[in-house]
């Protein structure tokens, strides 16, 4: 295990340069370049605010940052799951040439998503500052451990989806549908109260995305330090997902090439 992590670290220049190249080629020849990454959540937030803002009867200066925090988080999750499925296929030519640790290919997918997410997160923080202002900005520092957890979570999800998809190509399509369903089951664009008030909130407790959303939103939307138990729950989720990822890689790592 330690040797494996060392091997991943040993080829860091390789996967880092792939991530860099992914980002660069994504914007090559586009007029706005990286601006698209910022414009996308802004556009989505504006549209949903206009369409549903009235429905949810929420004051816009509170709802807009709340919504954007959810949307940017969700696009990260979508990158590591739907995008994660393609990780090994995207790295196929390297896998055929070099016995590098397989975990670096999902890592590449995750880091690309993480870059966009960090841009989105800064945007959310700025938006909340402009629209509403921070009475207390210190809780924002709790985002650092939150992000650490989120990166690990994303990496392990990308590994799991990559491994499963290499065996069963249906996974990619199932994931797309599943993610769509999850989107509506997760308080991304509505407040959890909406479900709790109607007595259908219990399944929020079984949704692994909810603790992460709460950790992200508490300091930005409420200017409060998140509940330590939320951290514990999120850490437990990360522990489960990374254990699953390690187990999956252990058994499948050297089989991947036979299924590409």
């Amino acid at each position, binding site marked *: 295990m330690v040797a494996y992590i060392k091997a991943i670290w040993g080829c860091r*220049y390789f996967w880092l340069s792939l991530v860099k190249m992914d980002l660069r080629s994504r914007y090559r020849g586009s007029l706005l370049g990286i601006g698209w990454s910022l414009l996308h959540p802004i556009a989505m937030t504006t549209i949903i605010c206009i369409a549903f803002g009235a429905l949810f009867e929420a004051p816009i200066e509170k709802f807009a940052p709340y919504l954007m925090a959810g949307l940017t988080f969700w696009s990260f999750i979508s990158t590591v799951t739907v995008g994660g499925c393609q990780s090994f296929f995207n790295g196929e030519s*390297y896998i*055929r*040439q070099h016995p590098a640790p397989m975990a670096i290919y999902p890592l590449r997918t995750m880091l690309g998503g993480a870059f966009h997410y960090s841009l989105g997160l800064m945007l959310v923080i700025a938006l909340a500052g402009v629209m509403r202002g921070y009475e207390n900005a210190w809780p924002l520092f709790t985002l650092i451990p939150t992000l650490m957890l989120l990166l690990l979570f994303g990496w392990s999800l990308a590994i799991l989806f990559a491994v499963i998809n290499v065996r069963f190509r249906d996974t990619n399509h199932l994931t797309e549908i599943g993610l769509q369903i999850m989107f509506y089951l997760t308080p991304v664009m509505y407040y959890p109260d909406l479900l709790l008030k109607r007595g259908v909130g219990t399944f929020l407790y079984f949704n692994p995305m909810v603790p992460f959303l709460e950790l992200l939103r508490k300091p930005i939307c409420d200017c409060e330090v998140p509940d330590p138990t939320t951290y514990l729950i999120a850490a437990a989720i990360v522990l489960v997902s990374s254990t699953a990822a390690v187990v999956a890689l252990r058994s499948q790592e050297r089989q991947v090439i036979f299924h590409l």
Partner: protein
Amino acid sequence: MAQIELDGVGLTFRVQQASRNTLKDFFIGQLFRGNKNPPMEVKALQDLTLRIGKGDRLGIVGHNGAGKSTLLRVLAGIYQPTAGRIKVGGRVSSLFDIALGFEMDGTGWENIAYRSYLQGETPRSVKGKKDAIAEFSELGDFLNMPVRYYSAGMQMRLAFSIATAIDPEILLVDEILSVGDMAFQNKARARMMEMMSRAHLMVMVSHDLKSLAKMCNYAIWLDHGRMLMWGDCDEVIAAYTASVMGPPVKDTASTQAAA
């Protein structure tokens, strides 16, 4: 330090006849017998035992589909053998499939950098080599362009220049590469020979028996994944040539076609 030990190594591919393995096949196919898509077994390598050490030059000969390239990939650690044990001591550099693995949107320079990283270089060591690679490739200003716009020949040139800019301990070669136009071919050949002579240990697959005889001291003859013969390079090549030229030998290892 540089050494390779194979002990009864075998590799069996399980190939799906139809190229897909769906969830339906997995669940339903196991519930009801009579799966329409049973995996087919291809015994690519069988019971190979071999020991070579520092200074050795091993050539591999055999028909197409005899398992030569598969063996190289096993030695490189890309395929894990399904039977037996393998021990490879030393840093492995491999020269196969070099035409694969360009990031088409990256410039020539960018591709030089990260392909070198894949070969285990660091930004510092690449800095020293970059110009030598560029010079050898003779691509000049084209290196500032995305690889997407390169001709096939130019891509091969670049790939070759990067792949051969290494100090190999254990070198695995799949065919001596013939790259580029006439002038470049001579240059490339010279560079390849020079690199191969520097390697502490080399394993090489080739249909060019003359070069093989020149470069190697040992050889093995693979047929349907089995070692038909192993020993002094000249003897093995003579026997192999005789079998190809003379009346076709009886197929002793009547296994499935390792196409």
